[in-house]
């Protein structure tokens, strides 16, 4: 690449940009750092120190006053381990099945010409403008009639057909699956189901993994739906379980911060591992499309 005239900006302007990036970066990270510090302090130290309690140890911090007792309390005395298991279970099942549902649906809409295609497409994509809250009441009513209230299935089933997912996969099929490959496979006598699983899905693998991560994190973070549908505390996912700590242990901020950390950490880790897939999946619909 040839050097562009704009690249050799003056040192001052570059320093200014670094300065701004560091300031905004700190503002972004400080809530996390504060939460991390709060979660390993005692309840008393929470009120007297901003980050870590001051003392005579290394860097002027009283390292010996730090404690993991909040985490012990969360996992030993409170049903947080159970809630985490629920979250892992719900997010895994929902994201895997929703990804398959949306990929198959997107394939059906993108790669076949049939009567009713336009109607189906616009009916599904049209619901994007409907506020999700409008459906809360009538969906609950439907779940009630199906006998699914307070069952895992009552939470799982409605999450399996997001319009956003169908849109992304339809787009991916149009952009990256050449019709000739499907034709050739048909001529070779390959069955339709096999074509989908063995030829089409491998081609759109990047979109599959991107949508898997996006929906896993989305389900993990969902609060309102599990709060409405799953009523027994033993079925609560982490979002509901940790939020309810605030009502029960409202004065113990260290415990609440430890709980929040425990709830955020798994998806943070997942995101750090798969950030490229995640971000490219998000932007692919808007920028290229």
């Amino acid at each position: 690449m040839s050097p562009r005239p704009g690249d050799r900006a003056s040192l001052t302007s570059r320093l200014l940009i670094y300065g701004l990036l560091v300031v905004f970066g700190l503002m972004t990270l400080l809530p996390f750092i504060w939460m991390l510090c709060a979660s390993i302090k005692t309840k008393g130290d929470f009120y007297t120190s901003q980050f870590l309690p001051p003392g005579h140890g290394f860097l002027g911090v009283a390292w010996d006053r730090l404690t993991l007792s909040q985490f012990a309390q969360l996992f030993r005395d409170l049903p947080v381990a159970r809630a985490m298991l629920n979250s892992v279970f719900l997010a895994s099942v929902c994201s895997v099945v929703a990804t398959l549902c949306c990929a198959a649906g997107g394939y059906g809409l993108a790669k076949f010409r049939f009567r009713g295609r336009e109607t189906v497409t616009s009916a599904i994509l049209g619901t994007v403008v409907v506020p999700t809250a409008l459906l809360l009441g009538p969906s609950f009513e439907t779940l009630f009639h199906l006998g699914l209230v307070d069952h895992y299935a009552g939470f799982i089933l409605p999450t399996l057909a997001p319009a956003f997912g169908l849109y992304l996969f339809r787009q991916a099929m149009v952009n990256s699956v050449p019709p000739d490959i499907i034709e050739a496979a048909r001529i070779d006598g390959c069955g339709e189901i096999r074509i989908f699983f063995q030829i089409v899905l491998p081609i759109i693998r990047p979109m599959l993994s991107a949508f898997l991560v996006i929906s896993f994190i989305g389900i993990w973070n969902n609060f309102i739906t599990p709060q409405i549908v799953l009523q027994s505390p033993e079925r609560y996912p982490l979002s509901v379980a940790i939020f309810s700590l605030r009502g029960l242990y409202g004065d113990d901020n260290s415990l609440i911060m430890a709980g929040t950390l425990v709830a955020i950490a798994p998806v943070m880790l997942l995101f750090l591992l798969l950030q490229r897939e995640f971000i490219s999946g998000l932007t692919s619909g808007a920028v290229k499309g």
Partner: protein
Amino acid sequence: MKASRSFSEWTPWLFLAPYLLIFGTFVAWPLTRSLVLAFEQTYGPKTTAFVGLLNFQFVLHDPLFWTAVRNTVLFTLAAAVTQIPAALGLALLLNRPDIRGRRLFRLIFFTPSIVGLAFVAIIFTLLLEKRTGFVNSSLHSLFPVWDPDFPWLESYVMPSLIAAALWLSAGFYMVYFLAALQNVPAELIDAAHIDGAGPWQRFRHVTLPEIRPVLNIITLLVVTGSLQLFELPYLFYNDTAGNGPENHALTIVTYLYQTGFRTGDLGYASAIGWVLTLVLVGFALLQRRMTQRGES
């Protein structure tokens, strides 16, 4: 076109079947129900009556609904003028090849978007607490005149919510702007440079027109998302069912949720929901017309 083995007419429906089954049961059917419910009133369990347009008349004369509209519109305007420039600004800072650590900064700015709203609400209500909250205690230690009991959550409801939403969303929209900026042809910028255009002129006349489609999408997402603001204020002020002090946190969707799940009047809740849907569709159409006019 060469002759080819064709698929049977059932094949596409086979692939669509799982999606359509779920979509029909949990989206299309509830949506139809909500349309019926909007013309009904619920009196206690299992007693409903057709009331025609009464729910809609009630909505338009309901002072609480208008309080909710005022708060929601205020939040939406504030969200648009804070989140969009912040996201675009961060993207512009990161879109320079001569800056090191761009990937690290992009990662840092994006991380808040991974945090669920329930957790954001927990963190921010503790950050903004009187005396013990991080915001007041650091402001007090930096500027001793700052009142450590500054009532963010009690008296500055909207600024608190706007700050939390900004922290949460700026990095999220930033990645869209960054992707768009990276698609701006370098030759265009170079040509403007050679013509002697300054940084602002290059941005205004070269970059901005190129990223306009993404800017339009982001505006649509920010506005329609903000008009549906619910979980953040609901969880910030969970002890008052999302009303907040003097109803300052009450939004349209919070009010919808309260009528549906607390009062138990699904009909009235549906009417509120359909009024909101009309507003959202109206905004989307308006924006589309304006962009089409801008293009022609």
